């Protein structure tokens, strides 16, 4: 029998606030174990959470980025469960009244509906020493602000799911909400998946696969689950509603706990935090403060800058690269030339060195200057590549680099003229031969000019001048 996968996602995204959501500890990734902990995020008796307004604003921005309604009234609840990475033994989250509801993201011409986005705090990390049989708790991540984005079960394939996550991650990045570094855990995905026979409209029993932290594992986990559930259904058996864990090494999923074993979280309103209220004016101020989103940027690149759609798409798909391009384009409106240099040469160097755009030693203005030198005919196309490579390796000023490496093209006609005069005088035979119709000699004479003038000679100018002199 053939089945249609029915997939819904829960995306957890860490928000880019400086401090944690209920205290003033740094929310940065990493750090020495338990170095970013205070009485509040350690849950010491008597402490109280104080809501970080920055996190609230970012969550609202996420809402706007994903086409949600940002609610004028939202509130926090407590989700109670015991786990050593959760110092208070409850997580502060939004259950009944989330900050955003009813969004949508269009993928391949189809709207994927977003049920809700809510704010919650992240838990700590446990480090297990299997050898000694000891576990340690690191609370640095405790209280890092998260949003959880919950979709409706509108996705129908692993590829669709992947594309959706990519699009959401991109929008969150553009909105400045999340850096979406899945390898650092700043974006994590839970997949809910069931199978439905072709022709049916009734959803099957779903399994939830927790905590997927790469696009690849999302795809593999979904594909594995489709296979696993298909086998079960084909045998006439029933899929068990349960939570499963994906094993990256084996590429399979294993049951974690069944519905019967599921926690009863005993949600109730968080009494320590007053509700979050937005006036109309506050909401429109946040909406107006939204950075340029990918779609808008695409239109700017293609319509204003005249970039080909393919180039625009390539740039926009990597926000850091696109930001770099934007900054360079602001220095020099040679949009296409800059795009070419970024998309071909800069990317090549990045790939070769394994570096990120944020690691490079030169500024977008430096790159814009290379293009300017080339536009002005001061350097050749090849020289532009060479200068970029040098910038990449050791930084510096493009003009200085060009000079130091003798890459400035000689565009001074009088200097060239005297060189040409000299070449003509010293090669009287060849000149004679050319004049009597032997065109091939021109190449030889041109070579002599370049030899005399150096690499920096502007070849076009030299050629024109030589022709003129020979015609005299």
């Amino acid at each position, binding site marked *: 029998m053939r089945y249609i996968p029915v997939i819904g996602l829960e995306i957890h995204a860490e928000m880019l606030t400086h401090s944690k959501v209920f205290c003033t500890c740094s929310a940065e990734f990493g750090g020495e174990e338990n170095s970013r902990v205070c*009485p509040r995020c*350690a*849950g*010491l*008796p*008597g*402490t*109280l*959470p*104080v*809501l970080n307004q920055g996190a609230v604003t970012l969550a609202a921005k996420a809402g706007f980025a994903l086409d949600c309604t940002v609610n004028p009234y939202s509130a926090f609840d*407590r989700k*109670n469960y*015991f786990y*050593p990475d959760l*110092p*208070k*033994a*409850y997580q502060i989250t939004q259950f009944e009244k989330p900050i955003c509801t009813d969004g949508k993201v269009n993928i391949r011409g189809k709207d994927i509906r977003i049920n809700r986005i809510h704010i919650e705090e992240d838990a700590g990390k446990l480090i297990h020493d299997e050898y000694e049989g000891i576990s340690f*708790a690191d609370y640095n991540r405790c209280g890092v602000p998260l949003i959880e984005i919950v979709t409706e079960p509108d996705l129908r394939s692993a590829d669709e799911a992947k594309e959706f996550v990519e699009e959401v991650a991109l929008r969150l990045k553009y909105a400045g909400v999340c850096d979406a570094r899945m390898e650092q855990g700043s974006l994590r995905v839970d997949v809910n998946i069931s199978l439905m026979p072709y022709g049916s409209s009734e959803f099957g029993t779903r399994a939830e696969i927790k905590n997927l932290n790469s696009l690849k594992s999302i795809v593999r986990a979904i594909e594995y689950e489709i296979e696993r559930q298909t086998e079960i259904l084909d045998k006439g058996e029933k899929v068990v509603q349960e939570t499963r864990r994906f094993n990256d090494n084996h590429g399979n999923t294993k049951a974690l706990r069944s519905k019967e074993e599921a926690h*009863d979280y*005993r*949600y*109730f309103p968080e*009494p*320590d*935090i*007053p509700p979050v209220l937005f006036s109309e004016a506050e909401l429109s101020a946040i909406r107006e403060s939204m950075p340029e989103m990918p779609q808008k940027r695409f239109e700017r690149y293609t319509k204003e800058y005249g970039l080909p759609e393919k180039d625009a798409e390539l740039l926009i798909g990597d926000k850091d690269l696109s930001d770099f391009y934007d900054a360079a384009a602001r220095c020099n409106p040679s949009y296409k030339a800059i795009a070419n240099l970024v998309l071909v040469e800069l990317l090549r160097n990045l790939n070769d060195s394994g570096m990120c755009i944020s690691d490079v030693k030169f500024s977008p203005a430096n790159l814009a200057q290379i293009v300017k030198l080339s536009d002005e005919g001061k350097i050749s196309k090849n020289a532009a590549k060479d200068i970029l490579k040098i910038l990449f390796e050791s930084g510096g000023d493009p003009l200085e680099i060009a000079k130091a490496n003798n890459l400035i093209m000689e565009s001074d006609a009088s200097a060239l003229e005297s060189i040409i005069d000299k070449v003509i005088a010293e090669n009287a035979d060849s000149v004679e031969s050319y004049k009597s119709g032997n065109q091939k000699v021109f190449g030889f004479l041109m070579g002599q000019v370049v030899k005399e003038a150096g690499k920096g000679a502007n070849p076009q100018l030299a050629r024109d001048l030589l022709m003129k002199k020979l015609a005299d």
Partner: protein
Amino acid sequence: MMSIAKLRKMLDTRQISAIELTQAYLNKIKEVDIKINSYISVCEESAAGAAKEAQKLIDEGKASFLTGIPISVKDNICTLGIKTTCASKMLEDFVPIYDATVVQKLKAVGAVILGKTNMDEFAMGGSSQTSYFGCVRNPYDTSRVSGGSSGGAAASVSAGLCAGALGSDTGGSVRQPASFCGVTGLKPTYGAVSRYGLIAFASSLDQIGPIAYSAEDCGGILNVIAGYDENDATSAKRTQNSFGGKIGMSLKGMKIGIPKEFFGNGIHDEVKSAVLSAADFYRQAGCELVDVSMPSLEYAVSAYYLISSAEAASNLSRYDGIKFGYRSTNGESYEELVKNTRREGFGEEVKHRILLGNYALSSGYYDAYYNNASKIRTQIKKEYNDIFAQCDCILTPTAPTVAYRIGEFENDPVKMYLADICTVTVNIAGLPAISTTCGYDSAGMPIGMSIVGKAFGEAEIIAAADAFEKQFARQEAVL
């Protein structure tokens, strides 16, 4: 027993130094507290140090109301470097690494913290019998309870073992022990005093409040501890009142509501008549007594126990033996360790409430219990609004009886819960209320009355209580 107002004069006129005053209280604690067990920790050294600093302030002419005044702090309010046990085995050795906001404020004005007072474990109870460190005895009759949960706070004031005390009130825990011990206790409006550093019992109901010799003293302490605190998101952004500012104003024309449900069958006759004769005092002073009604009162205790236990179950989940406090030495797995830690570390009453709270929140029961309790909460608030549309304050008994014998309700916890009937609605509605002694029963035990005010109407109820106190002859406890 001497009022802070009087001690202030003595300190300012150099009749006594802050150092001598603190020493006198410390000596008395040593001598007398063995009879009533009001303190869990006494901080002799830090108190002496604080007294010295206070004397400097006095000498420099920088003294304010509490400078050099010996104060006790309930043992659920965090004190930097001083054990804060919540009267529980769970926190027997817990030493906070920060001061509660109220403690910071006391220290900032040069108040002297004598020690940490005994209480019901995690403030759960109305008799201070559930303390891991033994029950608090009533200074008027040591075979009787002090009331609770701030029993140590009230008894320490009543026995003259401090000049004023900080307690906490979740369902009557400041007012009822003040009533049982014959002193004055004030539960401020929810949000008036920062809860930062108060070890939570039921967060939506908890408020720190003063217990002292008089309403005037309570106002003076409240002036110091009240105010917005950025560390407590539920604290109110208000410019601070002068809480004693209305003392001495004429009561003429004040409308006092007498809600009939608070004078029903469950209320002891001697209590009823003492409170009603206080009402008569107000009538003669020119107040108008208004008959009012609170039909939902019969559901109040149930709603209170559901809401407070639900919040407590969650608040007390952090005591798992992993990070701080007691840790069981039994248990092979994480689950076993947590179970055994909590089984061994919490007392019976605390466990009852955790079970009750988790039951009320569990899926399938939430609507029937927690949700219905929330509805009653809304209804009670509405009924208070209706009453306050007709009057300025409300007069009720503080407790149905005077202090009872230790162990009297041991086998009937529900009966003890019901004794909270007069106080819990004030917390449910977040209102201020003050309890002061309005008479003594035939055995000489103090009877308390409560005056409930509008939200942030502390100054009015303090003035009303003060007017009564000024003409009432207190009988001091003799130990």
